């Protein structure tokens, strides 16, 4: 495969013409996967390719990290363009998480509701009626990016992230809902608090939520 990807400023030919790809260092092959990100992730993981060290799903893309010195095999290149329309995604686990909406832990709930033209009770009802899906994880260990937030509750991130918010904070950022597994800085809009322990390094698996899992929030 040529060096610089086939995106703008690309140097050369497209061995993989159907997808957009780039390198992040010589080991990280970043491919655009759109709404097939989880399906492509599962197909690549189950192929268990020799040259692949790890695969990290993200927002509409995958990062396929190769072992040092390794090149992408023909099998990998074929899997990147394989038609997945008939593939059946492995179902994730369904989690029901209890939420204490509003209050000090959900200090932005009033503003989120006001933006949507709703009362706080209506905003809670709307947020807890949806089913969410873990699209990918990152930011901190066990932090899941949950798709499925009702459009009325979409909120831009804070222009100035808070330096310290408590563990378990439930928040809305852009189109995503998330729960902060550990105390620390955070730039999303806080709407409540979840009791469940999202990440515990002494548990296997350590993360409660995994890519592909589904979540419903139950208001306390």
């Amino acid at each position, binding site marked *: 495969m040529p*060096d*610089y990807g086939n995106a703008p*400023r690309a140097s050369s030919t497209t061995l993989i013409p159907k997808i957009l790809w*780039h390198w992040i260092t010589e080991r*990280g092959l970043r491919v655009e996967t759109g709404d097939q990100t989880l399906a492509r992730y599962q197909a690549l993981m189950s192929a268990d390719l020799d040259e692949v060290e*790890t695969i990290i*799903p993200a*927002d509409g893309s995958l990062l396929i990290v190769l072992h040092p010195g390794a090149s992408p095999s023909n099998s990998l290149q074929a899997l990147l363009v394989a038609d997945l329309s008939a593939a059946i995604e492995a179902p994730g686990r369904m989690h029901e998480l209890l939420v204490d909406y509003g209050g000090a832990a959900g200090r932005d709930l009033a503003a989120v509701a006001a933006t949507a033209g709703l009362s706080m009770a209506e905003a809670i009802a709307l947020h807890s009626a949806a089913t969410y899906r873990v699209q990918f994880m990152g930011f901190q260990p066990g932090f899941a990016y949950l798709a499925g937030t009702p459009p009325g509750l979409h909120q831009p991130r804070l222009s100035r992230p808070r330096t310290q918010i408590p563990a378990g904070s439930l928040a809305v950022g852009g189109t995503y809902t998330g729960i902060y597994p*550990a105390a620390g800085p955070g730039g999303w809009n806080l709407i409540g608090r979840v009791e469940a322990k999202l990440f515990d390094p*002494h548990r296997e698996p350590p993360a409660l939520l995994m890519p592909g899992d589904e979540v419903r929030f139950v208001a306390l």
Partner: protein
Amino acid sequence: MTSPPLIEVLRAGLCDLVMDDGRYGYTHLGVPIGGAADALALRWANRLVGNADDAAGLEITLKGPLLAFPQGGAVALSGAPFAASRSSGDAVVWNETLVMAPDEQLDIGAVSSGCRCWLAVQGGIQVPEVMRRRSTFLPAGFGGLDGRALRASDQLALGEASVAPRVLRIEPPSTNETAPLRVVPGPQAAHFTDAGLAAFFNSGYRVDSASDRRGVRLHGAPVAVATQDDIATQAVLPGAIQIPPDGQPIILGWDGPVTGGYPVIAGLVSADLARLAQLKPGDTVRFATMTVESARTLARNRDVEVMDGY
């Protein structure tokens, strides 16, 4: 009956961390691989004391600890040279097996050039495994010794040595510390203005004091973006060079996040992660591009053989 082998920390260094070759298998859950900043250097030190490649040792940064070895044993140092002495008066030589006598002390002082060194101990450091590995992950406070750097009066249990120590040595590949860091252009190179790209590739950047294992923060000519539009959160890996809104580059380190929302202008070739491990605040770096194929060849050729010591 002999007591189990251990290390006593008589004086802690600036940031002594228990490290192994990294915690694989959890990046999709938001946990970076971490591990020794120069995993190959720790591997060399482990081989010099007869350990398996995944044995845990110490990563020592800028200023080292004073350690006592009540039962003695073989140790080895790799990476950057530090001022160091032994209570026996014997010389402390890097990249060579050192056989410590019972109750001997090893005093590791300040770094003489570079930033980090690695200490392997025969038998390996036996802190409990967390998520299948022993590396310290400071950002979330787990792994290593209680998820933290060493403190005075800590004790580190060691595994039993299976064989008598044999003196070995290695010759690490030489590095040109003044050469530019080599990078592969990144996925968002097109997000930057020509002036921004020119600044990044043609000027020097100073390593900021806010740098740590999560990222090496640089200060210099700001790298201007052509658009302030947010990019979709993407997965990243150590060596990815992000440009935040202030235009000052951040080279992601071993304990950095696995996803990021800032555009990535370039990625450090993996062979030069060993040089990233040796950058300290105040150093100046420059960048030069390299092809993916050349970077892979470099990565394949960095390992060296262990030789007899004499």
